[in-house]
């Protein structure tokens, strides 16, 4: 149908006062023995750096992982900016394991180079020396990349600070509510509105390259699935069939979307839509509710929710196979909304745990399920691209808030909105 491929140009309204919620990050739980690190204020590039305190962003990122404790600046007896000037014995005496120092320098074309060194003060060795050149307008992202590198050097796990999240923000009281789709840095900073509507927006999903979001919008009173390029705002309605159009999930190659469609008779099944040819393939055919499909990282199959057994459970189907989908969740009476870790080894699911809806991690190989979150009404889990953390939505005093929890359960932090509620967080991929 040609109508379904209608391109809708979006109005750019120019500079406006941000009228949407700003997220505030709070560390709610960290490891009992965090690694002490001194992130010394970097030498600035005035005025090119626009007053952005790169070292402070790096320190906050590292602390937000729950695995690091940053040395307060007021305790620093010296503020070196090169490794050669570090008083190794002094920082060691003040119980630091690592010292990070750095310098900003402005290039001629609006670029800023961040030059960073990391010293292990226990061994006295310089363990990292790296430069990043970013556009001055992107300095915050550069700071997150520095934190990523330091995190990886020390923990062995790639950092996910220089990534983005998308979420839905809602304000007002029903039935007069305003819905916004927001993209922000992983620390909640730099929120940018992608879409606003006075009808529900739900189920945002990142493409694997981080350029596009798919989502469901009820702006036409009935549901339709859209894909929208984050950078340009250009978007396209890709499914507005009779009945439900829901639960989009991108194939890893970005060429297809898994969708839930119901038709006029209301039977929800999972379909595959080829975005290039518009060809639609039915993947499940069962009178129960089949929905919430998500591709495996290798693109050969999908996990989805089905209540064909009488209550919602997780199933897996293999593309191109005639075999019936295989049930994979067996713990408890309610398992839904599966999301797969980047390495394909863990599933995050919404599970009913002793009367509360919580996020659990299921080991794919063994099937063992461990409850991760502690709320009463947690939902919408999404893995960080490094597989180390899960972002999810919970409720606090009746308001939706976002939370990230490390998959070992040791660290967690909360992202509160200053107004309204936030829900359905999805963690974007690593950016090139």
């Amino acid at each position, binding site marked *: 149908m040609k109508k379904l491929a209608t391109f*809708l140009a*979006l*109005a*750019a*309204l*120019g*500079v*406006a006062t*941000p009228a949407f919620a700003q997220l505030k990050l709070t560390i709610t739980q960290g490891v009992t023995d965090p690694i002490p690190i001194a992130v010394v204020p970097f030498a600035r590039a005035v005025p090119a750096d626009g007053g952005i305190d790169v070292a402070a962003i790096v320190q906050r990122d590292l602390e937000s992982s729950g695995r690091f404790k940053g040395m307060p600046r007021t305790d620093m007896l010296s503020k070196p900016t090169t490794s050669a000037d570090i008083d190794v014995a002094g920082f060691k005496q003040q119980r630091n394991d690592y010292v990070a120092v750095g310098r900003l320098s402005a290039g001629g074309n609006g670029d800023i180079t961040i030059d960073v060194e990391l010293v292990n003060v226990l061994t006295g060795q310089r363990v990292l020396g790296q430069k990043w050149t970013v556009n001055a307008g992107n300095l915050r992202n550069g700071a997150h990349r520095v934190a990523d590198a330091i995190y990886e050097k020390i923990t062995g796990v790639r950092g996910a600070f220089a990534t983005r999240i998308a979420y839905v923000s809602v304000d007002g*009281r*029903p*039935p007069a*509510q305003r819905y916004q789709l927001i993209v922000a840095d992983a620390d909640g900073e730099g929120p*940018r*509105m*992608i*879409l*606003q*509507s*006075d009808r*529900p927006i*739900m*189920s945002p999903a990142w493409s694997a390259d981080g350029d596009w979001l798919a989502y469901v919008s*009820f*702006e*036409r*009173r*009935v*549901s339709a699935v859209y894909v929208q390029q984050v950078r340009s*705002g250009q*978007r396209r309605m890709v499914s507005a069939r009779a*009945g*439900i159009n*829901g*639960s989009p999930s991108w194939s890893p190659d970005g060429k297809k979307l898994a969708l*839930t469609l*119901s038709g*006029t*008779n*209301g039977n*929800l099944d999972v379909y595959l839509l080829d975005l290039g040819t518009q060809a639609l393939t039915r993947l499940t055919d069962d009178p129960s*509710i089949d*929905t*919430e499909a998500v591709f495996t990282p290798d693109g050969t199959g999908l996990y989805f*929710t089905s*209540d064909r057994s009488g209550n*919602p459970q997780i199933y897996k189907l293999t593309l191109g196979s005639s075999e019936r989908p295989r049930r994979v969740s067996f713990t408890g009476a*309610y398992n*839904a*909304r599966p999301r797969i870790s980047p390495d394909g080894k863990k599933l995050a699911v*919404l599970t*009913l745990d002793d009367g509360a*809806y919580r996020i659990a991690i299921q080991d794919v190989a063994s099937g063992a399920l461990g409850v991760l979150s502690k709320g*009463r*009404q947690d*939902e*919408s889990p999404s893995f960080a691209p490094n597989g180390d953390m899960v972002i999810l939505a919970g*409720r606090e005093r*009746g308001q939706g808030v976002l939370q990230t929890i490390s998959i070992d359960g040791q660290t967690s932090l909360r992202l509160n909105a200053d107004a309204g509620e936030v829900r*359905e967080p999805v963690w974007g991929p690593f950016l090139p």
Partner: protein
Amino acid sequence: MKYLVSTVFVLATAALLAGCPSKPEEQPAPPPQSTADTSGVDNSGVTTDSTESQGPSGELLSKRIVYFDLDRADIRADSQSVVAAHAAYLSKNPGQKVRLEGHADERGSREYNIGLGERRSQSVRRALLLQGVAEVQLATVSYGEERPAAQGSDEQAYAANRRVEIVYLK
């Protein structure tokens, strides 16, 4: 920084208005009074907009919300008379269209709740079809838990939100 804003309701409104039926010319005889308890049905919280009409009035016909039990999509005994009244009215007014909006309470996953809301709207749709309403008169939509009638995380709010709203269209 640019903020991209899209509220393209004009298009949607035009699409819905296209081919809209004329208003019914005569009011049907009011259905017989039922002694059944209709506490499971009311019309509080029903909103109308440019594509919706007030619809018929009457003891039962003015009730536009059908409530459901937890995890159920079958029409409760206390709502049967209301659904029957709408079925009778719609049968006699084949040009009148309604949208059946299914909803779920806030517990559980959002897309699965879209499915539960759809099940409820389909349940009302089937009942209306069985009682003589034509398919072309009925559209369904499920909002899942996205458009609650009542806020709050208690049994009272949950019960108010598990519902199908019968929306008369222009």
